[in-house]
């Protein structure tokens, strides 16, 4: 101040060099602090955004699965059909427990880390139709069906595509029986009817070319009666339905970004098809809640493991007996994009990966299957 007052008195208004330098130094310090604050904030905000995206993505995926799975078995209950004591609406592929399937160095996961959830529903546009004549799906490879009232054979034939799966249902008491066949050609018009060509089943009614494990993976819990499979279907009483199942699985085409896919219909099962539901999913497990007689088993992540009715207490399964599934429990673990910010030293306490993780689990009750509830 004294300096300035002197310069002022000399008639030269303005700041001295010293004042200017002090001011600049102060400005630099404060400005630098502000810049570093802003850049820290930017990083923080990116992280928060990543975390929020992750949470939203997982919740979205779970909501979608809830909608699909609660409709499992839609369309099974056709006139006069007395469904199996518990119909098949969910089939699963579980990976064997205990076998490590990741690469801890690259933070990538193998196909053995992820389960597959199949939700079996039928195509409501096709509805349920009777075969025109009695048919044995073990010996026959074609069947004719009459188009429903108000539909031409041409329009009806166009609804069946090569690769589609048909569900055959034979009403019965106390259980209905069933099987599936896979179409080997598009539906064709045969006079007033529609002709469908399919792969025949084996003698037990197992369709070895099917995609959804309904008959191929179907097992029996010891002490249960035989699985409800059959091969002969009568013209007047039995039904054919076109399946329009939904499959949730993980696509590992890009090993650094496992994606949860939703694939509806057999046409979409090939790799690269279907819709991406969520990205960066590092855990997808589907446990089934099992009930055998009055024994409950809250969750099982082991489809083919020994059953609880055989005395098992740890990592029990249900021998692939889909009729015992009462509800499913889906566990998803997602992560933020790894190494998005190279300077971020964050490592999570789960697998020490350079990303944040979040888990979500939900129990879904397939309401369509609880006919008496």
């Amino acid at each position, binding site marked *: *101040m004294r300096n*300035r*007052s002197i310069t*002022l008195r000399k008639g030269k*208004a303005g700041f001295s060099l010293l004042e200017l330098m002090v001011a600049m130094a102060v400005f630099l310090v404060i400005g630098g602090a502000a810049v570093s604050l802003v850049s820290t904030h930017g990083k923080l905000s990116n992280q928060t955004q990543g975390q929020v995206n992750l949470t939203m993505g997982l919740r979205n995926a779970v909501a979608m699965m809830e909608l699909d799975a609660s409709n499992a078995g839609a369309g099974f209950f056709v006139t006069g059909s007395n469904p199996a004591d518990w119909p098949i609406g969910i089939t699963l592929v579980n*990976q064997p*427990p*205990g*076998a*490590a*399937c*990741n690469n*801890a160095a690259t933070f990538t*996961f*193998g196909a*053995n*880390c992820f389960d597959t959830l199949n939700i079996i529903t039928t195509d409501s546009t096709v509805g349920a139709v009777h075969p025109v004549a009695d048919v044995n799906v073990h010996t026959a490879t074609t069947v004719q069906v009459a188009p429903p009232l108000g539909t031409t054979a041409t329009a009806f034939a166009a609804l069946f595509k090569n690769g589609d799966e048909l569900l055959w249902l034979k009403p019965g008491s106390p259980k209905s029986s069933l099987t599936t066949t896979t179409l080997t050609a598009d539906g064709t018009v045969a006079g007033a009817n529609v002709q469908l060509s399919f792969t025949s089943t084996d003698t037990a009614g197992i369709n070895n070319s099917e995609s959804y494990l309904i008959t191929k993976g179907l097992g029996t819990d010891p002490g249960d009666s035989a699985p409800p499979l059959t091969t002969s279907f009568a013209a007047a009483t039995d039904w054919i339905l076109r399946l329009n199942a939904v499959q949730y699985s993980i696509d590992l085409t890009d090993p650094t970004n496992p994606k949860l896919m939703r694939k509806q219909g057999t046409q979409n099962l090939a790799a690269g098809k279907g819709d991406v539901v969520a990205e960066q999913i*590092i*855990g997808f*497990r589907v*446990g089934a*809640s099992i*009930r055998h007689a*009055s*024994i*409950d*088993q*809250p*969750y*099982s*992540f*082991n489809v083919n493991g020994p059953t*609880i009715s055989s005395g098992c*207490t*740890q*990592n*029990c399964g249900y021998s692939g007996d889909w009729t015992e599934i*009462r*509800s499913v*429990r889906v*566990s998803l*673990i997602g992560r933020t994009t790894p190494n998005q910010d190279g300077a971020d030293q964050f490592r999570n*306490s*789960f*697998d*020490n990966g350079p990303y944040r993780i979040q*888990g*979500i*689990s*939900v*129990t*879904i*009750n397939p*309401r369509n299957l*609880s006919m*008496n*509830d």
Partner: protein
Amino acid sequence: METSISHRRRRMPQSRAHEEGFTLVETLVAMFIMAVGMLGVAALMGQMSDTSVQSRYMSTEALLASEKLEDLNRYGLGDAALTDGGGLGADVPQFSDQIQVSSGKDVSATGDIVEISQGSDAGGNFFWQVRHNPNGTADSTKTYGAPPAATADMVTFDRRWLIEKDQPVQGVRRITVLVASPAMQGLGRQQSFQMSMVKQCSATPCP
């Protein structure tokens, strides 16, 4: 510029008369005001972090409550699991369990994500443990006996449910699930989440 120069000129003699700068009182008052302001900001930040923790707890509670409702919904109309009973105020055997959710290396050397729920059946009390391992595997174990004590990083939730018959109208059961968090209760925060559904009985009034 003109005004500022004239202003400085006027101040000049005064500053020379008294030593330049702020007095101690002025400084103290300024610091006091500043401190009050900073305290406010600090309190706000603390509250924000509390609220975010609370909302995290609440969303987990909501998830656990709906999980139990879905779980109870899978039973048939006349199933023993839907016998009326239970309560929301205190743990009632068969109508309550405790969930321990954890993630981190305190639980196991591998950093597993573990969830433990309790129940009881003909064989006695059991606990059910679902474990997700970072190596990509998952398993579930049913063990009779008491569950292991919760470790420091575990968050526990008490889950209780109440099944009332012929409520709110005849011929239905009302199932209410309440999930409470002792940790939030300790902080004096809102700590429970409650959800209900009604389920038809096999006859009217309910047997």
